[in-house]
């Protein structure tokens, strides 16, 4: 069970690397082979323009993972910085920053990301911007809560008494103790960023054609569900396997790092 997530992720990595090595053409249109079932030349069948689904799925996993990685790194940095500042300084700064996070938390689920993506316009860059603008909140709250309790630990008080600068206290004395909690949180939220990216692309607000995003492929697949059910099933199953691997990976990390995850839902 412990090796399942690692195994799935390695399989995907291997598949992507082999696909790159073979020079797959995810955007090559073949009008003689529309919506074909899996055959020996197209292992997962073809889509509504005769493009090879396997190549498109492999292209999609790169995009999905890339977006998740970029968004997670950026939101983690912003969120941790805000959380540390609020938790360390407390008082008015804390009050203002936490008011700000409560306002962002008042928008359920993807609503704010959808709204931002809608006004910014479609495309990869705007998608990243929309996800980054909304993703930092959970990290900020988590970091602040931890920093508040760390603030009164003897080693922190000692460091402050010895004249350590606030920056030094935050980076040298807070961050290392927060690391395991943040790593686990970041793993789980990678899965939700992937879902968010796919959702926005599904609504036509994210990555645009002809780039192969899983969300857009699911939308097209659902449109041709009656004639070619394999399309939506194949893409969905691929996406689910990755989601499952990331979530289970989060569980494994959580147990290994011994983090009690508070319910942040």
């Amino acid at each position, binding site marked *: 069970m412990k090796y399942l997530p690692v195994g799935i992720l390695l399989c995907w990595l291997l598949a992507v690397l082999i696909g790159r090595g073979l020079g797959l053409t995810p955007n090559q249109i073949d009008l003689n082979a529309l919506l074909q079932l899996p055959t020996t030349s197209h292992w997962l069948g073809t889509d509504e323009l005769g493009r090879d689904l396997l190549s498109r799925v492999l292209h999609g996993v790169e995009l999905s993972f890339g977006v998740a990685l970029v968004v997670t790194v950026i939101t983690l940095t912003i969120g941790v910085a805000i959380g540390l500042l609020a938790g360390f300084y407390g008082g008015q700064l804390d009050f203002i920053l936490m*008011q*700000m996070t*409560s*306002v*962002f938390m*008042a*928008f*359920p*689920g*993807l*609503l*704010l990301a*959808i*709204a*931002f993506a*809608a*006004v*910014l*316009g479609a495309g990869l860059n705007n998608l990243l911007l929309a996800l980054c603008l909304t993703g930092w909140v959970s990290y900020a709250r988590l970091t602040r809560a931890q920093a508040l309790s760390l603030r009164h630990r003897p080693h922190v008080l000692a460091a402050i008494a010895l004249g350590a600068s606030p920056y030094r206290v935050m980076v040298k004395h807070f961050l290392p103790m927060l690391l395991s909690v943040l790593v686990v949180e970041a793993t789980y939220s990678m*899965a939700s960023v992937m*879902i968010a990216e*796919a*959702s926005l692309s*599904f*609504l*036509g*607000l994210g990555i645009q054609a002809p780039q192969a995003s899983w*969300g857009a492929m*699911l*939308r097209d*697949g*659902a449109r041709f*569900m*009656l004639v070619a*059910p394999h399309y*939506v*099933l194949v893409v*969905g199953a691929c*996406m*689910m396997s990755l*989601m*499952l691997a990331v*979530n*289970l990976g989060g569980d494994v990390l959580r147990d290994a790092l011994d983090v009690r995850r508070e*319910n942040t*839902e």
Partner: protein
Amino acid sequence: MLERVLGLFSVVVGVVMLTFALIHMIPGDPVDVMLGESATLADRDALRSQLGLNQSLTTQFVQYIQLLSQGELGQSLSNHRPIAALILQTYPATLQLACVALGIGLMIGVPLGVLAALYARQWPDVVIMLLSVRIAAMPAFWLGPVLMLVFAVWLGWLPVSGMTQSASIVLPALTLGLGLSAILTRMTRTSVLEVFSEDYMRTARAKGLSQWQCVLTHALPAALLPLITVVGLQMGSLLAGAVITETIFSWNGIGKLLVESIEKRDYPLTQACVLVIAISYVMVNQMTDVLYRVIDPRTRGGA
């Protein structure tokens, strides 16, 4: 109490400010984006003054607040009807879908959670937990089409989409409800397991109650209490999470209205939908909080 009301007020003000800011985040001239390149100068000026975009930012904000306080959300650009009427027309459908989905989620989630807790670390627990992880990993835009494929296309039991028949609600509600049940199962399991280790449970067992009596009369009422918070939070996100499900199943709720407004670049309507969904989310959460305090004997009378 006063602090809570003030906190709620400041969040609502923040939400209004953020939704107001949305229209100013449009890159370039919002009027150009809404009308397209070919619009005449007169049309542009008309829209600009209709939206108040030719005034200063503060004036615009004050006017926005004034109109909002009168329950006035402006006019839709795409079909020239009052936005408030459009939202009132679609909101009941969303509410109905959310309630049915919540019912399904509770009916599946709570019994499975109790079962998993009763057989903790034995095979029923393992199977249930494994299933719930798997279902939680299924986003609505995959679960929806799969359910549609199986129950509407292959088996032909239920209508594919739309809302003409009364059975139309089953598939969208199931899509939302299954995802919800995965969360509720996990919560119920944790919460029941926690209650099992309490002293009064040992007393109940010691006085000779059967396992089922223990669970039903002693464990469940205490264990379900924390669930209220989760249900409240989920009810709020059902109101918004329905955006994708409503789009898939052509369910004419506020989520579909939002998506359509985005497609038509009807920004005032988008803005209003976002505002209404966010405010109802905040309100549902507040009500849950109050309800929790009223029901839980430990918090009664205290702060």
